[in-house]
């Protein structure tokens, strides 16, 4: 391996995880540079949680390799010090208070930023001496984030941290995250199926669908390379070579395509428009539906 693994926050090569005969994640190859806030998106069951658990060392891969900050993710103190992880549903010790959790963290970690963590939670108005079971979902998520950040990790991995939160709590959580990331060289991976929120926070995206990687790119590049084409109906086989169809829908005389373009679109009969990240991601997921239903990706879907 003559690649400088250390330059990547995350690098995987053919990474896969099998439970019984079922591949939860298959042939996942990604490379995320350091210092990015990465959105890990995909439909439920696409392997987002599995990928994160492999990356934090809670699970062992069935195939392939992974490097986080240039090291394989294994349970050594050194590695554990460098990561912050917030698991799905924000597991905390229900009967302990936020204060208890911070003390625990201080005992269990070497680079613990106690003042920073306490300041952050105080500013958010989190009751420090109440059992976390009695806090709201948003407050618990903030405590979880506070714990993960207080470790002063080099990479922070968050599994669906906002999924269960109401819109206001979600915004506050993402604001806390943005603030924590600002100015530092912390790398963040944030999984979610709520695309809208991620677009504001993230600058890189990994799209998993049907247990495989579909995209791993800077969001700006993704936006720049995807277009919506609308034009008269025609066979998909005759398209320009620079166009890869992600999703097509047709009405009786019109064809709408979500495409990836590697150069200018020359055919003037297309009406070309830009796409938001959400539309692009959804197009990939729709493509996934086509594949899993046994259809080829360029076949038409009547709308």
């Amino acid at each position: 391996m003559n690649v400088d693994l250390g330059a990547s926050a995350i690098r995987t090569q053919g990474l896969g995880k099998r439970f019984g005969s079922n591949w939860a994640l298959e042939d996942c190859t990604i490379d995320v540079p350091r210092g990015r806030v990465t959105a890990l998106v995909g439909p439920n069951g696409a392997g987002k949680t599995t990928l994160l658990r492999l990356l934090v060392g809670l699970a062992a891969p069935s195939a392939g390799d992974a490097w986080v900050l240039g090291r394989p993710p294994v349970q050594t103190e050194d590695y554990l010090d460098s990561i912050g992880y917030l698991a799905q549903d924000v597991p905390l010790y229900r009967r302990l208070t936020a204060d208890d959790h911070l003390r625990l963290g201080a005992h269990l970690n070497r680079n613990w930023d106690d003042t920073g963590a306490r300041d952050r939670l105080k500013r958010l108005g989190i009751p420090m001496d109440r059992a976390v079971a009695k806090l709201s979902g948003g407050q618990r998520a903030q405590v979880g984030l506070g714990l993960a950040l207080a470790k002063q990790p080099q990479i922070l991995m968050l599994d669906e941290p906002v999924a269960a939160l109401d819109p206001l709590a979600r915004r506050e959580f993402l604001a806390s995250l943005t603030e924590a990331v600002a100015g530092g060289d912390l790398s963040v991976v944030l999984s979610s199926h709520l695309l809208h929120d991620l677009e504001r926070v993230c600058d890189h995206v990994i799209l998993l669908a049907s247990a495989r990687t579909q995209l791993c790119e800077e969001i700006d590049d993704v936006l720049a390379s995807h277009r919506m084409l609308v034009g008269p109906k025609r066979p998909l086989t005759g398209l320009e070579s620079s166009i890869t169809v992600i999703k097509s829908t047709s009405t009786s005389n019109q064809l709408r395509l979500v495409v990836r373009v590697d150069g200018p679109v020359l055919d003037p009969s297309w009406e070309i428009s830009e796409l938001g990240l959400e539309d692009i991601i959804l197009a990939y997921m729709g493509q996934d539906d086509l594949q899993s239903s046994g259809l080829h990706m360029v076949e038409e879907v009547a709308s």
Partner: protein
Amino acid sequence: MNHLIWKLHRSQAYFAMGALAAFIVILLVTGVVMADDYHRFLATCALTQSCSAGQGQLYSGDGAIFDIVNLTIVVPLLFGLFWGAPLIAKELEDGTHDLAWTQGVTRRRWLTSNVLWCLTAAVVWGAVISVLVMWWRGPENALGSPFDAFDQQGIAPIAYAVFAVALGIAVGSFFKRVLPAIATTLGVFVAIRAAVGVYLRPHYVAPLVKTASLSGPGSNPPAGSWLISQGLVGPHGQFLGGGLVLNDLPAACRSVPGVDKGSLIPCLTSHGFSNALTFQPANRFWEFQGLESGLFLVLAAGLIVLSYRRVLGRDA
């Protein structure tokens, strides 16, 4: 790690300390009275040579406390159910293992600290209760047999406690839920303890056999021994077993009505029948305690190894 363990288990610890303190007070108070009764009894029974008849009469009225002391047989099981089984299963059930196992301590160290504390608590509590019971039963052990409370005194209860906790931890590492872990621990513990007690313990060392008359002085096993079985021996020395089979009896005795032992036994005695007593003598008590403890400690060690393999190899 120790801070985490104390934070998570302090309420259990307080409860266990309270229960132990109450138990200590009850036993100390009643034990002192019993010892006093016992010494007074010895002083008088020596004169009438009726000391061996004292068991069971001496402390009539103290039944409830006897029951409490005998019930300490379940104490090791309680450690297994409420300390051992939830140790890992509770973390898995609540998902908090994700939190614990991504802090700056390795999973191995996390497990080692937890296991050591849990085992230490089991040893300390088990030892205190066992020592106390043994002291409390002193008079009873002297008049009867220490084997009568083999499971509650000596060093065996400590080994049971260690085994129960190890079993709970191991079982808990296989379940993601506390309740099934507790239920399984209960079932397996009772099954193994019962099987060892019934099938293995009597045979740790070949028992002694004594042939005795069917009634009267000398028909009892030696003082303090553990009677395992007894059976009829015919006039020619043939062993007839524990149950009476009519055809084995001399014709003259068969007519003796039913179960009227009062007249059957003299009849059998007069025809040369005797009683074979199979027993373990009192002086083997500590040897047996050591063997049984060793057995359970070996089992416990195996279970701890299993727990490590489970937790360290686990895809959390």
